């Protein structure tokens, strides 16, 4: 396995870490995603009650996924780097 001088050389030569999503965009992404989650939640509340809640489940799933990413982006935007 590599020893200490080798790791130093490796660390200096490899490319820097880059995130999947640029950090500067995170506040805007958070706004869009959480805004969509809010809108979908409102739409969810207007849906008719059916025996098999297929439509409701779909809307809820989409809102949850957008909300999940939106909350993570929100946390990072305000300085709580999760």
């Amino acid at each position, binding site marked *: *396995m*590599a*020893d*200490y001088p080798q*790791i*130093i050389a*490796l*660390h*200096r030569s*490899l*490319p*820097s*870490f*880059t*995130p*999947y*999503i640029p*950090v500067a965009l*995170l506040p805007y992404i958070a706004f869009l995603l959480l805004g969509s*989650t809010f809108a979908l*939640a409102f739409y*969810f*509340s207007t849906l008719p*009650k059916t025996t098999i*809640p297929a439509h*409701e*489940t779909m809307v*809820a*799933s989409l*809102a*949850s*996924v957008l*909300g*999940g*990413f939106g*909350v*993570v*982006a929100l*946390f*990072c935007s305000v*300085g*709580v*780097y*999760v």
Partner: protein
Amino acid sequence: MKLWPPLAVLCSLLAVDLVWAAHSFENTAIVRTVELGGSLVHVTTTYAIKSLEAGSSRYTIALGRDEHQKTSWLEVRLKGQQAALPFERHGTHLDNEVYLYDVTLPKALATNGTANIVVETVQTHATYPWPQEAAQSEDQALKYESDLFVLSPYETSVQRTKLRSSTPSILSFTQPEEVSFATENPATKSGTTVTYGPYYNIPASASSDFIAAHQQHVTVQYNHGFPVLEVTKLKRAAEVSHWGANLNIQDEIILHNAGPRLKGHFSRLQHQTQSYYNRPAPHVLSWATLLLPAGISNVYYYDLIGNVSTSRLRTAPSPPKGLSQAALNNHFSTLEIRPRYPLMGGWNYSFTLGWDAPLGDSAVWDAKTGKYILGVPVMTLIPGAVVDEAEVKIVLPEGASDIEFFAPFPALSNTLSTHISYLDTTGRPAVTFEYKDLTDKHTGTIYITYKVPFLAHLKKPIAVGMAFFALFSLAMGWRRVDTRIHTKQKL
């Protein structure tokens, strides 16, 4: 024993030879220079050696028991060269009075071949205040004790020890008695330096017989112009975030002024007068300048009471990639901190200092192995301070696996644990390193390699999404339940 066991980085990969196989040498001259300081004392010993046998490549250096006890860092090199020579603990320690280390020379010496070996050590807790109490406006004096002779398993033609103080006032020094190896005055003082020697024709001294017959303790008392600082406990936590591309480093520091205890009460008036006339007392700490990494932001400095606003920060932008180490060393942010109250002798102050830095400055991605390599400095140097106990905890992202670490010097212990933080489900792996007696030479970087698969990155959004979905499911059920109170009820 405080000396770092030289088995990890500085050690050679030779098998330990337990049989005494040291080649014969002769010391033509030994010069030991001691730079007297506060909590740290730097000792440089230069051995001018001559080989008595052909093919000699292992030279043994000896440290006395007290010296070994105080030494926290040891490096051996040839004079004029940068590369450190590998050394290892010798197989035998004679009666616990002498500690022997074998140094491997880069090239074996022929008969009568010469070389100059420089041994640099840093001693901690080697000085103590004397007098033990000082009033607010008085000077501070420290005492340093040392052994008179530099021990060596070989014969020495001439040796001398020079103790150099930081200020010109040396208050007293021991005059050794009946030194049979001295031809002139055994101790002389000139300016800031006290010289013990030269002493001629000393036989092999790395034995308890020699120590019992000839070794003496010498003490030097000198004025020291800076506060003697000790970090009693340092807790460093480095947290990595891949989503935020951020490395947060937080230091919890307990600072102790190990100078002479304050005699009498603290007088704010006297303190203000001293600062006004710019004549601060040498044992009082008002300001300290710390060099933090370049590219940092969101720096916070608070203590038990709350935020401490008495600080000045000048940040530097992140250094570009591909700079040499020397250029990187010149890129730093400066933070001047002032504790909430001036630190008098014997006083403590605890505070928390932290900052955020872009993860790209410290971490790299190795596409070949699919691993990230992260570099975290062991500590931020507080000038002239010794760190008694340090704990460095590096928290990796959730789902990190295949964790390996490379430390610049061995730790007392390494532990792997789980750290739970915001939006965590399974917790984040954390590697903790424990250290003791760190000096200004222990400012290395710990490198950690780890893998985080793509799905592991999605743990957090999925966890939050599931929480949202649970709320929606609750709502779906709630809508279908009639919770009204019926007034017309048939009994």
